[in-house]
């Protein structure tokens, strides 16, 4: 989506950078965004989510576990100047590949469940090899929100749905939902319309026990039996923040 020049001038900050399709944020715009972020964190804290941080580099071996769920061509390769053969990937998302590793360390018994983790900060980003770029879909998203919900029974979807609806209500954004099949799971997308373009603002994936089994996360239930938790991954892109600011909504 293209923005009008007048809105850029109003903000007083150029949304461009010497590199094509990558942006920097500073001054007034960053202050406005950080205000929105504090609003978001308050909603998440009320819902019982805990903030954490995951590293920027993902080894190839971790992503290969999920090669039937995701296509690796969408991810950005990096290699060191010394060694070109052994390459890693830049983080495509927070929870899906790395959050499960941290959750595996935390979950030991049924008492640790439900575990609700999220990651959101302007200091690090999620990168994807996007085919089309504009302000809303750049290869790097600095303010993306990633949530992971681990539950004992299949309540994970309810937690996710409730959280997204409260966030979108708080930001007063009109949306429609669309459901798609996601290999062995389901994918629910929240779509909004901006000047004839349809933009996905949020979505959640229901993995069931699939992701937990792959990452070898298990716990002991009340009867002392070995069990795998249910998992739901949630993502909210920076579109929602930019939308709010550029439309001058309160």
């Amino acid at each position, binding site marked *: 989506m293209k923005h009008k020049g007048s809105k850029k001038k109003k903000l007083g900050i150029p949304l461009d*950078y*010497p*590199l*094509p399709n*990558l*942006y*920097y*944020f*500073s*001054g007034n715009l*960053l202050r406005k965004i950080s205000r929105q972020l504090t609003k978001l964190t308050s909603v998440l804290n009320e819902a019982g989510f*805990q*903030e*954490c*941080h*995951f*590293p*920027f*580099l*993902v*080894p190839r*071996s*971790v992503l290969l576990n999920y090669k039937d769920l995701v296509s690796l061509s969408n991810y*950005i*390769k*990096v*290699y*060191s*100047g*010394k060694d070109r053969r052994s390459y*890693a990937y*830049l983080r495509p998302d927070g929870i899906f590949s*790395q959050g499960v*590793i*941290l959750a595996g*360390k*935390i979950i030991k018994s049924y008492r640790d469940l439900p575990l609700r*983790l999220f990651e959101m900060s*302007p*200091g*690090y*980003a999620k*990168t994807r090899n996007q085919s089309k770029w504009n302000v809303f879909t750049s*290869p*790097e998203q*600095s303010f993306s929100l990633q949530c992971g919900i681990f539950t004992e029974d299949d309540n994970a979807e309810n937690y996710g749905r409730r959280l997204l609806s409260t966030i979108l209500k708080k930001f007063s954004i009109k949306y429609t939902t669309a459901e798609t099949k996601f290999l062995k799971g389901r994918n629910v997308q929240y779509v909004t319309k901006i000047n004839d373009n349809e933009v996905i603002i949020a979505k959640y994936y229901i993995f069931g026990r699939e992701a937990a089994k792959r990452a070898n996360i298990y716990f002991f239930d009340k009867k002392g039996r070995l069990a795998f938790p249910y998992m739901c991954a949630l993502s909210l892109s920076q579109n929602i923040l930019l939308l709010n600011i550029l439309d001058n909504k309160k």
Partner: protein
Amino acid sequence: MKMKVGQLNNLTEEKLMEWLKSYLDFGEIVNDDFPSKGASSWYPYGYALIKNILKLASNILIKNAGFQEIVLPSFVHGEDFMKECRHIKDFSEHVYWSPLYKEDDLHVVTPTIEAQLGSLYARWLRDSKALPYKYFTIRSVARYITGRTIPLRKNRDLWPLKLISITQSNKRQSL
């Protein structure tokens, strides 16, 4: 690894690092067991701790010294990075390269912010934006460390790193 306070002074560096790693994990601050070398994730308690420290530090910079925060992208163009590379020996071998748009056109995952800010400042000066430029950023940086990695100190994927930059019209003011 249990020990008394007085024993810490007599430890070798290896044992001290072992102690540090075990206590960071036991206290649920940093998890160093991530599959890739030199990358660690932060537990919720550890993250809450570091977030408060960063908030305090950035408030001091903003209110007392008139700095502004800036969020920069994770990539630097290869050409911009090579300008910085001239001053540091073998620096190009110790960073991560990425073919972001094309195979020939390489980009670097930011090891520092100097190259990024240099290209931005050059642009602002051309547009006659008034000096001084006082900026800071909190971000993660990637450096290819071949030796031993230590959590919080010497990592390939280091977070948080607070970088502060001042650009003045003369040398005296900037000092």
